[in-house]
């Protein structure tokens, strides 16, 4: 249907676009913008799944693609937007690390991700498996997701960071194994959705109890 080269090219373009959304999250301070970017990121991820599914004839991944777009690009962003409206906090005021430094760190993380991914790509070459070039991007996504959780203080940003990490995981799964067996993917999606809902409920409770949603206030428990 398609030749391998054009499939790989479109995968790479999509993966870079996904990475760009992660960088844009790091560069922004509006919570609504985070959520919108996360939604775009998940939509692009859904497209990656569509390309892998049709390009390599792994049609079970189409279900994962529909789930990605339905759950991560539509449902979770909808819930997060509701939360932001209710808690009436729209901006990230304080940072643990300012935006310029954050972007620099994330740039370094991308370089680091490239070297982490190398043994895996070597193994692909060794076993004559189709080499996926998007693995470094997926590892970079995971690292940037973790980084967002460390650098940002708002509870909503923490959730977006966690979800970015999970998008990175999904991308890595797609790129090196063409996705897990379908039933496993469905279970993973269910867990992620429930986790996002539970964290959403906690954001409300934190807001009610502490009158703020900065996780900085969560410092009572100490030894």
């Amino acid at each position, binding site marked *: 249907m398609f030749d391998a080269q054009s499939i790989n090219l479109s995968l790479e373009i999509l993966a870079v676009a996904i990475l760009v959304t992660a960088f844009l999250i790091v560069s922004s301070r509006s919570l609504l913008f985070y959520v919108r970017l996360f939604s775009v990121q998940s939509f692009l991820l859904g497209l990656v799944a569509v390309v892998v599914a049709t390009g390599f004839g792994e049609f079970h991944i189409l279900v994962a693609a529909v789930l990605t777009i339905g759950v991560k690009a539509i449902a979770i962003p909808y819930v997060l937007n509701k939360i932001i409206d209710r808690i009436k906090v729209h901006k990230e005021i304080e940072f643990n690390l300012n935006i310029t430094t954050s972007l620099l760190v994330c740039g370094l993380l991308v370089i680091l991700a490239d070297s982490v991914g190398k*043994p*895996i790509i*070597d*193994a692909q070459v*060794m*076993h004559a*498996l189709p080499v996926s070039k998007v693995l470094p991007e997926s590892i970079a996504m*995971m690292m940037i997701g*973790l980084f967002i*959780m460390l650098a940002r203080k708002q*509870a909503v940003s*923490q959730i977006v960071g*966690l979800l970015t*990490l*999970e998008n990175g*995981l999904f991308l*890595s*799964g797609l790129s*090196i*194994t063409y996705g*897990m*067996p379908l*039933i*496993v993917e469905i*279970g*993973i999606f*269910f*867990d992620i959705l*429930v*986790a996002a809902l*539970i*964290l959403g409920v*906690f954001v409300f*409770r*934190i807001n009610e*109890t*502490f009158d703020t949603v900065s*996780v900085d206030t*969560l*410092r*009572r*428990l100490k*030894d």
Partner: protein
Amino acid sequence: MSTLYFSLLLGLPLLSGILCAFLKRRTLLEAITLFSTALTFVGALLLSAAVLRGTSLITPKGWFFLDALSAYIMLIVTGSAFVVSVYSIGYLRRQIVNRKVDAKMLRLYYMLLNIFLFTMLLVLISNNLGFLWIGSESTTLATAFLVAYYERESSIEAAWKYVIICSVGIGLALFGIILTYFSALHVVSSQSTALNWTSLIAVANQLNPDILKLAFVFALVGFGTKAGLAPMHTWKPDAYGEAPAPISALMAAGLVNVALYSLLRFYILVNKAVAVGFAPTLFVIFGLLSMVIAVPFILVQRDFKRLLAYSSVEHVGIIVFAFGLGTPLAYFGALLHILNNALAKLVLFLTLGNVRLAYDSKIMRRVSGAIKVIPVSATLLIVGVFAITGWPPFGVFVSEFTIVTAGFAAGNIFPSLVFIGVVATIFVGFIYYATQMVFGEPHRRIDEGDGDAFSLILIGALVAILFLLGIAIPSFLSNFIRQAVAIVQG
């Protein structure tokens, strides 16, 4: 046949949990939970007996299975769940009287307790590593609202940290699973079996060792977070401190072992695929680190539930360290220690739950003279403290002694000396706090009111088992553990 057994085993707590969501009557909620946990325990006993007889329990597609190792952990988990459900009845009834809990909260509690058990069982019978992951993440989700149960500022903080840290951890474990799957794709012919542990272990020596090493590191961080291995243990004192006492007990006696079990599956796989030394060395390092990190927090502690949480960090360290020694004797000690630690943790969390109800505080300096206020619980508590700190004639002593012997025999002289030092220091801290709480005079007038007879008898039985395990290990148990050791050896 095994499909039927497994569906019953999973279905019972799951359906009971769903049923509890629609019920209002207190007695019904209690009866259903008691019934489901008791039957699950009986089911686990029957399945263990079948496994020990050599019956292979694996579903046709190989997604679910049970061997001696998972059966052993399952017995501990379901037994703990049964004890906890008996204890919960009396504990929550008293909290209703104290107006700490209302009817809605009661329903939530019993629903989530059942779901929690279901998620742990899902991990234990999963052969497919994807299902194992789904189960692990579900244990966090099932317990999230139990940690936040009392909706205090501190409990919401604890629950938030708990879900965030464990979700990140388990996310990294998923990457480990993806890498393992990837390493197997070119070896295992069918995609649907490439995630099954039994097919992976069969072809372990053909898997790419570099990829598996990387996968193991991610699995160690991920499941280590769930188990509360240092330095990923930071959620543990918060979560154990804030959850209701019986839930903390089930987390420390059940969930910890479920997480250790998941980690162990990767350990076995990597040991078979990678040149010796890689995974064991990491286990020894992280095990020792957890033991050492726990010491200062145990010596300078105000809160008795957090004290137990750090004790849990210490004992997870002991178990991981023991597995890292890599000899059959050490494996035997580690598996025996899993049982002993679970028994002792149940005793301590549940008796301290009674202390908490009597004194309405978990701050140790506000508790004194417990022996006069709640004599039975206080007696069991002090015995439990001697048991957990490794005094003869209790089971913990035997397993710790086995582990140290194995450590010296394996030539790990320095780590074994550190082990002894840690255990001795922690003993001092524990005895200091326990005697302060148990003896002396109460600071103020405390209404006498011990736990209910049923739970006290059960806790007493646990103490008796700990005592018997310190005298002699019954042959069916040593036989059981030896079969599990054979699996760990690969």
